[in-house]
């Protein structure tokens, strides 16, 4: 049964390779005193090295999610379409009367709004969701946990591309000619995704330990949608006007939609500031994530 092979050439080569290379040393210790920037350096090294892993995991998730369904990618769009239809129906039946700014047709307004909102909602839940789907492996195999975050990010990007299809469709149907502002659309959508992802990342370590946090998120996001100009514009008067003004998402979502419909944009500077702040917070969030993952794994993964 066992064939005793002589040490073949391949193993010999491997041995030589080992002797040549300097071995990577890892130290696990109870009181790790690493500098913030040292941690950042390690994080970037891991992000770079685990790109293939993140790509594989994204591919696996997308393949396995859609392989078992007949409609496949349609299910990425379904929530957006249904939500839009609800509001089109409410508006059409006269239950609510929504006025849109700049004379944008209501269907365009609502479909763009809900799509952009769904991108935001997905990005904010992405870090927690992607770590949770990796629960079965994080307690068994040691790999850079940043790969899970990257997987979440890649999946969001993939879904974003799919969600662009109805947007392009509706813009063509309503013959909306975009202006040069369309060039800013990628920046806006990235800023929005980054903003959401950063918030999601900051709450991830505690959110993984106590499920309350993701429950708050799931129940809170629909509520937040109604104080954001997603399915209707900012009210002209009243308490709600004030609430809308306080909500930073108002500016991000309005402007993102405006870049698509060719309307004027109002808060470019604000968006740039949000992006810079998000980026800094994202880095802090990554360090916290890295430091707390061993604790989290120990507590949640069986």
């Amino acid at each position, binding site marked *: 049964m066992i064939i005793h092979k002589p040490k073949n050439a391949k193993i010999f080569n491997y*041995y030589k390779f080992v002797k040549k290379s300097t071995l990577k*040393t*890892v*130290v696990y210790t109870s009181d790790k005193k690493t500098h913030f920037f040292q941690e950042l350096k390690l994080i970037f090294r891991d992000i770079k090295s685990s790109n293939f892993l993140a790509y*594989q995991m994204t591919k696996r998730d997308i393949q396995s999610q859609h392989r078992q369904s007949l409609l496949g990618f349609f299910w990425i769009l379904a929530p957006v379409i249904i939500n839009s239809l609800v509001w089109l129906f409410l508006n059409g039946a006269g239950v609510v009367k929504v006025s849109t700014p700049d004379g944008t047709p209501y269907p365009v307004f609502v479909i763009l709004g809900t799509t952009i909102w769904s991108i935001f909602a997905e990005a904010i839940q992405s870090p927690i969701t992607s770590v949770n789907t990796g629960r079965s492996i994080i307690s*068994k195999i040691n790999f850079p946990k940043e790969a899970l975050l990257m997987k979440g990010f890649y999946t969001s990007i993939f879904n974003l591309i799919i969600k662009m299809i109805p947007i392009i469709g509706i813009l063509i149907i309503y013959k909306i000619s975009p202006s040069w502002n369309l060039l800013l659309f990628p920046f806006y959508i990235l800023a929005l995704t980054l903003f959401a992802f950063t918030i999601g990342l900051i709450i991830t370590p505690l959110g993984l330990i106590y499920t309350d946090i993701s429950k708050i998120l799931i129940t809170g996001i629909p509520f937040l949608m109604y104080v954001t100009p997603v399915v209707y514009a900012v009210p002209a008067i009243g308490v709600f006007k004030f609430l809308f003004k306080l909500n930073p998402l108002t500016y991000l979502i309005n402007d993102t939609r405006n870049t698509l419909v060719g309307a004027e944009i109002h808060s470019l500077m604000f968006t740039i500031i949000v992006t810079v702040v998000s980026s800094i917070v994202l880095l802090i969030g990554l360090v*916290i994530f890295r430091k707390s993952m061993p604790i989290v794994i120990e507590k949640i993964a069986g």
Partner: protein
Amino acid sequence: MKKDREVLVSVQNVSKKFSKNLRSSLKYGASDIIRSTLGLSINKELRPQEFWAVRDVSFELVRGECIGLIGHNGAGKSSLLKVLNGLYAPDKGQIIMKGKIGALIELGAGFNPILTGRENIYNNASILGFTKKEVEEKIQSIIDFSEINDFIDTPVQNYSSGMKVRLGFAVAAHLEPDILIIDEVLAVGDLGFVLKCFSKIDELLPHTAVIFVSHSMPMISRICNEIILMDHGKVEYQGKEIGKGIQLYYNKFSNNSENKVYDNGMLELISVQTDLMNNEIHRHQDFNLTFEFKINKPLDKLPTLYLEFKDKEQKPIAGIFVQEYLRDVNQSTEIVYKTTVKNPLFTLGKYIMDVGLYDPTTESPYLRINNILEFTVGGEKEQWIPFELDSENIITLQ
């Protein structure tokens, strides 16, 4: 060959604590996260509800050596492995690992049931740290090793557990690690595959430092050159004498109450006697066993007495048949078997004996009692093998 003696694994006074209930465990987890975020120090001592799962373990391992971790369930072996693998941070102490770490802790972790074997190889390999190029180079070799060529494009959910282990081991074994951590994973495969796995481990061993956890002592004694016996997180024995460690491990279990496994009511055991002091056998010294049975129903033939000796793993290793033809069996009410075991060759350790009575012609049993006698064998040397045979040797130098 200085490089070969380099220390790849250095574990210094490592301790790890866990919490007994989930609620406090989560509470401590949350407070630890917040404290470490704010840069505050974390309490290293036991808090209420906590216990040490691993306590003060230290060892060093150089390339080409293998250390075995043994202990009862819950002794802390797997927790220690998880700390070594960097999954959990130690609460005290320090671990230094050099080189590529391959861990066979749970084979096939991360297999997605809906994807095919081939897709899962890509996936699993990337989790284990392969680059795309490496996977493409090795995929054929991995498929060949797993011997599931025909089903490689079938979804993994249709695989048997043995097939999943084959695939998992094949991927992990191709990682060519400097440090290899193996938890009890090979138990699922069939014999052919287990043998294949061991020959692969043998192939890797000279270039690798291996940390091996198993409940199978033959496997431990086959590949390890140092052993750590753990009990409730603490190290009970650590050293190069594998046999001694294994014996200490076995001595922890003594659930050998006598039990009757078969009785058709014809015969009844009255007494068992030995001339052994404290049930201790000495090599080469004959000993006597006397069994007394009461006959409940008349017999026509004298039953065969069968004695079976088992080692601590319940593996039968030796037997004695006592068979003779006597007349007028049906007149008697009692049978006494007196047996002398000549020149016992057992090696040091604990053994158990079963006794059985059988019909000499049909071999159908009358009575069978397990664990009737437990005895130890004294000796100078700790050995793994149950027998050391006597031999006459001629050695010539030419």
